[in-house]
């Protein structure tokens, strides 16, 4: 563990202790909530024959004022049987306005490449006109800074049949050759998913299409590794909420 990791771990532990004490006092009033959701749990079939299992979920426990949240996403290459990406974030979040929370914590990447620890600060919430926003700033243990913006919108075809366009943008301030990320706009992913709420909002199967593209130096790094710069996937999956 280098000193950067240690500092962040310490900060996180302190924050966790704060959360636990809040939880303890609030618990007597029964105001601690928890929840789990898998925004995406899907099989992706690529235009070049890729077969991937992709997930993106989160779980929280806490009060209206302070929540501990885990956010995890990953990609399993079903063809080669190996993890493409694995990212876990553990953050504390607290409201900063009626509709937005600020969050801070740690991100730990352990794909088949080099592991990385990042410090995270971000905003999550509901923007005007119902855009669900999740924006994060990352600083890696190597000192590389990057940012990611997630936006999602729900179009109600009926109250059960829902079309969800989404977009994710990655931006990096510096090159991180090992992690395959170059400075500038690094990558985007846009998706369009059509889901149907089968059991309440608990289980909603969906079909959709996802397009990914790497840009600039990041695309160059990918070419060097013989990886695709852009891919289109047909997806089928489940959205889960418990």
């Amino acid at each position, binding site marked *: 563990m280098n000193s950067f990791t240690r500092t962040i771990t310490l900060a996180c532990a302190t924050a966790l202790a704060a959360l636990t004490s809040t939880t303890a006092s*609030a618990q007597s*009033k*029964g*105001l601690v*909530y*928890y*929840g789990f*959701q898998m925004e995406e749990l899907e099989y992706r079939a690529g235009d070049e024959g890729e077969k991937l299992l992709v997930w993106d979920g989160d779980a929280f426990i806490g009060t*209206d004022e302070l929540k501990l949240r885990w956010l995890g996403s990953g990609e399993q290459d079903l063809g080669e049987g190996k993890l493409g990406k694995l990212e876990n974030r553990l953050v504390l979040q607290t*409201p900063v306005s*009626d*509709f937005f929370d600020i969050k801070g914590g740690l991100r730990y990447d352990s794909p088949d490449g080099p592991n990385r620890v990042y410090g995270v600060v971000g905003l999550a919430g*509901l923007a*005007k*006109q*119902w855009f669900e926003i999740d924006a994060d700033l990352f600083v890696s243990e190597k000192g590389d800074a990057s940012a990611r913006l997630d936006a999602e919108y729900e*179009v*109600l*075809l*009926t*109250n*059960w049949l829902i079309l969800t366009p989404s977009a994710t943008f990655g931006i990096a301030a510096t090159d991180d050759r090992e992690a395959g990320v170059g400075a500038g706009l690094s990558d985007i992913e846009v998706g369009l998913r059509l889901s149907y709420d089968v059991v*309440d*909002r608990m289980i909603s199967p969906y079909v959709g299409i996802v397009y990914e593209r790497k840009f600039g130096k990041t695309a160059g790094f990918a070419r060097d590794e013989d990886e695709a710069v852009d891919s289109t996937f047909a997806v089928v999956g489940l959205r889960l*909420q418990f």
Partner: protein
Amino acid sequence: MKFRSLYVVAATLALTAVSMQQSQAVEYDLTVDRVAIDIDGETTYGIGYNGASPGPVLRFREGEDAVIRVTNNLDETTSIHWHGLILPYRMDGVPTISFDGIAPGETFTYRFPVRQNGTYWFHSHSGFQEPDGAYGSIVIEPESREPFRFDREHVIILKDKHPHSGDRIMRNLKMSADYYNRKQQTLGDLFSDFRDKGIEATVADRKAWGDMRMVPTDIEDVQGFKGLINGKTPAQNWTGLFNPGERVRLRFINASAMTYFDVRIPGLEMLVVQADGNNVQPVRVDEFRIAVAETYDVIIQPKEDRAYAIMAESMGRSGYAAATLAPRDGMKADTPAPRTKTPLLTMADMGMDHGDMPGMDHSKMQGMNKGVDHSTMKGMDHSKMQKMDHSSMKGMDHSKMQGMSNKADDPFYATGSGLVPAAENGGRFLSYADLKAQKPRYKLRPANREIELRLTGNMERYVWSINGVKYEDADPIRLQYGERVRITFINETMMSHPMHLHGMWSILDNGNGKWNPVKHTVNVNPGTTVSFETEVDEPGQWAFHCHLSYHAAAGMFRKVIVEGGPKSASTSTIN
């Protein structure tokens, strides 16, 4: 001497008789149990009394003492609150405010004098036991003759039974506040609005709501329930009997967790004779809206030898309860098709001072500012209110808004509200403004002070509060024994809130002066300001909260402490 001893004996006997009369107690034993609830053949589990949900009808006579032994067979703490009953606060049944609650296995004896008459109900005040089925009704016969006549009576207790437990509903609401809202506007609605209102007006309207991140369909935030009457679904068809020509008193109680019902009996007029247990000057209506926790007694006179349907549709039209009144058992009334058109909230229901609508400062509206004497508001002309130029509201084509054609002169709805109800048969719909006390319960006197309470919340986070503060962070409201306080609610949320003060009566200011009706639950519609006064005549600590279960749990709740007064009165009945 003989005479004297006889006299003593007689006097003793007489005294004994008198004291017996005074202490004559009606005793009930209630157990609190896990019970099975049959919903159209599907068994769900919940909490009930004496093995059933709803619990029994408890009957008392005014002047008696009530002794109710409650045994908790659950593995969690329970409590029973006697909704609307005026009693020593230690008997009020609210854990952490009036007592410790009833531990598992424990029996708690409630003992209090019955000092009122009418229709009331009881329910658990612990966790979500009440939404889960812990409720029952109370009927109190008056000591003296009632000012109306009836030949028979039925209790009609309404409930919204949800397949999810209360705990789960609360958790889901905290995860996504619109979890149970399946009446949201869809893409199809957008296109039909394009057609009906034009693209420009529709886009402006959607933009206005989208900027606030609110939806005009947030009328019922917990949908998906089954409406029950006396524990029966519409298919299970609870049936009440009558002989044609009889005057039948129906004691309506809304024991729902979250649902307001619009009640009608097609083919019959209803004569409203009581509201919240207090006699009112009779009002003939075709339909009435009953807020959560309210009670209304109506008298009907079915003349034909046929079955009549009691139809109770939820305010947002997401569910309904139905039952039959029939001359013989086994008959089923034709239930009218439930109305499907969902009302839509308007900018008026937003309190009109949200967003960036110019000139909509509530406090400056004539006749709407605090401290106004409603009794002088007769015939208040809304069109003359200052700064109320609807036509200049951005993006709001009022002329084309749903529900805008309804009578807008009911002071209990914001002008232009989308919630103003209309009777299905075009007849008369009961308004709070129609309620006049049969006999004033209290002398009319000016309130010595006013407490302003803003009803607040954050719909997206499912946080509900008063003056922006949740219960857990709030100081109690302190009242002085003997004072008369005016409580003014300013509803800044887009939902209706049935506000219930325990232990003391709420004298609703509906502009009728000394005839203002006396209630225990005061509904406050979105965008409105409503006042009631209370004679602070019961010492102790009381709960004061929104009676929507999940709003109360999320923080729209206060403790009221009555300071001073006869201490003995509040402590004499502590066990």
